[in-house]
């Protein structure tokens, strides 16, 4: 298929498309993405078309105006360059994370915030055009609201470091392997968010007695227009928690396009899919939100421990909500070489969803002995804690540094990853390798 395309010239291709009924405006779209790709130096025009799967259903969907807009794909490629050093799992939709040693900052800078998108980048995120944007609050409220950005900014502004972590972070550590983006440990960030409390907005709308759950919607197009938009929600208590924000800035600037410009939810400590990006509607429900992404096996874990590799029936699954105790080693960089006796600074973060971190223990001998790291208090609830310590090795060899965090309920990270069918809430202890040379 690709060989055939390579022998095509541009003129021949557009001729064939016209012969087959493509409109000229659709062909213009193809030309636009092709030239953007060429500009990026990635591939030739015809190569770009082949990579888009032109000779497939996309030709109908995009070129014949039935759904996908190829231009949007080009936009995502442009914005990926704002995330230097990101490990890319997928480009359409964009999914990428940073290695733990790139996430050492107490406050994650916007360019190091992971990207976990389910659909395409909205046009508005690319153009940064607020014209026509609004946030609707409707459903089980006394006064439905339609808020512009100016309206939103009339509520008291708060700025907080808050942790957002993809529900699948750690999936790569599941055995047997599970489906989905193979996140290692970097689909987590503690950025500084500015916005308004969701509570304040919901109080202005006036919650009815019947309000029990939220349903969140964003303006990112689905990969296929026939598929309903990605939508999840949270129980009303979590929505009313004072750290749950409608955010319009990250790190003091507009939220990056890939992370939800102009407005997103930040539901800290819970699986990241609760924190809807490109937010434009919150539907207050009188029952548990019941979209596809709330049901079945989506963002759900078994109600009881299951045999690894065995998928229990849907009725035995429950919604994944808060994260549990977890830590990450951000210093040193794995596989660094040291001298005998050299002091090695070891540091990282620890966090615990709705709970507090009580201690972090470090081992350099595969868990035979442990010592306590210094734990620094977090600046506010739902920020991660900093821990640090020093180690040195008296003999040459290969060593591993292990970190294990404990919460205030006495729960610690497991040594082996408990298994669930879609690899959610992975929190197995983090191990890194170091080498001591003679």
């Amino acid at each position, binding site marked *: 298929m690709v060989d055939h395309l390579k*022998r095509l010239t541009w003129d021949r291709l557009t001729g064939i498309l016209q012969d087959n009924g493509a409109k000229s405006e659709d062909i213009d779209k193809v030309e636009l993405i092709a030239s953007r790709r060429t500009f990026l130096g990635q591939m030739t025009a015809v190569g770009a078309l082949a990579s888009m799967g032109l000779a497939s259903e996309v030709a109908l969907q995009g070129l014949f105006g039935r759904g996908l807009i190829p231009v949007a794909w080009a936009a995502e490629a442009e914005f990926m360059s704002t995330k230097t050093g990101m490990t890319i799992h997928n480009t359409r*939709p964009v999914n990428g994370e940073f290695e733990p040693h790139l996430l050492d900052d107490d406050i994650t800078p916007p360019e190091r915030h992971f990207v976990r998108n389910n659909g395409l980048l909205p046009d508005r995120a690319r153009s940064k055009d607020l014209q026509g944007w609004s946030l609707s609050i409707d459903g089980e409220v006394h006064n439905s609201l339609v808020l512009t950005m100016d309206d939103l900014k009339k509520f008291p502004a708060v700025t907080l470091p808050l942790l957002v972590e993809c529900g699948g972070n750690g999936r790569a550590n599941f055995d047997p392997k*599970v489906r989905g983006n193979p996140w290692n440990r970097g689909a987590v960030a503690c950025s500084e968010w500015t916005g308004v409390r969701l509570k304040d907005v919901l109080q202005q709308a006036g919650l009815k007695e019947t309000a029990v759950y939220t349903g969140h919607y964003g303006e990112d197009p689905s990969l296929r227009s026939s598929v309903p938009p990605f939508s999840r929600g949270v129980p009303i208590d979590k929505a009313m928690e004072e750290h749950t924000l409608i955010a319009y800035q990250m790190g003091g600037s507009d939220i990056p396009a890939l992370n939800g410009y102009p407005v997103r939810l930040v539901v800290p400590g819970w699986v990241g899919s609760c924190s809807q990006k490109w937010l434009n509607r919150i539907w207050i429900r009188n029952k548990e939100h019941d979209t596809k992404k709330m049901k079945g096996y989506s963002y759900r874990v078994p109600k009881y421990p299951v045999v690894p590799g065995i998928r229990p029936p849907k009725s035995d699954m429950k919604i994944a909500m808060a994260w549990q105790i977890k830590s990450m080693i951000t210093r040193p960089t794995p596989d660094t070489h040291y001298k005998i006796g050299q002091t090695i600074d070891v540091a990282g973060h620890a966090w615990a969803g709705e709970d507090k971190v009580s201690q972090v223990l470090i081992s350099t001998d595969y868990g035979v002995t442990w010592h306590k790291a210094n734990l620094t208090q977090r600046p506010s609830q739902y920020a991660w804690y900093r821990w640090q310590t020093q180690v040195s090795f008296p003999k040459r060899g290969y060593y591993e540094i292990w970190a294990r965090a404990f919460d205030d309920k006495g729960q610690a990270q497991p040594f082996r990853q408990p298994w669930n069918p879609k690899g959610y809430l992975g929190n197995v202890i983090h191990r890194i390798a170091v080498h001591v040379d003679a």
Partner: protein
Amino acid sequence: MWMPKFKILILLLIWLPLNAVAESAVSESVPELSGKVLFEANCGACHSLELPKSQRLDQGTWQWVIDDMVDEFGADWITEAQQKLILEYLVENYGQKP
């Protein structure tokens, strides 16, 4: 010389997913498409292929993925025979290595 053949292929790949009539009209004149081509053309229509290629899943899990794509994510134009070829290709190339 190659143009008519190419045109048929383009036509096939364009119409095959959505139009059963077109499929039957042209499928007699071209060889059956391989699991690899079906995977790339059909799966690549909606999402990039880095993700499926990064997976190492057993047959049951790949079947689960394909069922979800067809039933839940709108890839409902892929025939059962094509799904079977795609499944075989995925298990062979992106299966669980012992």
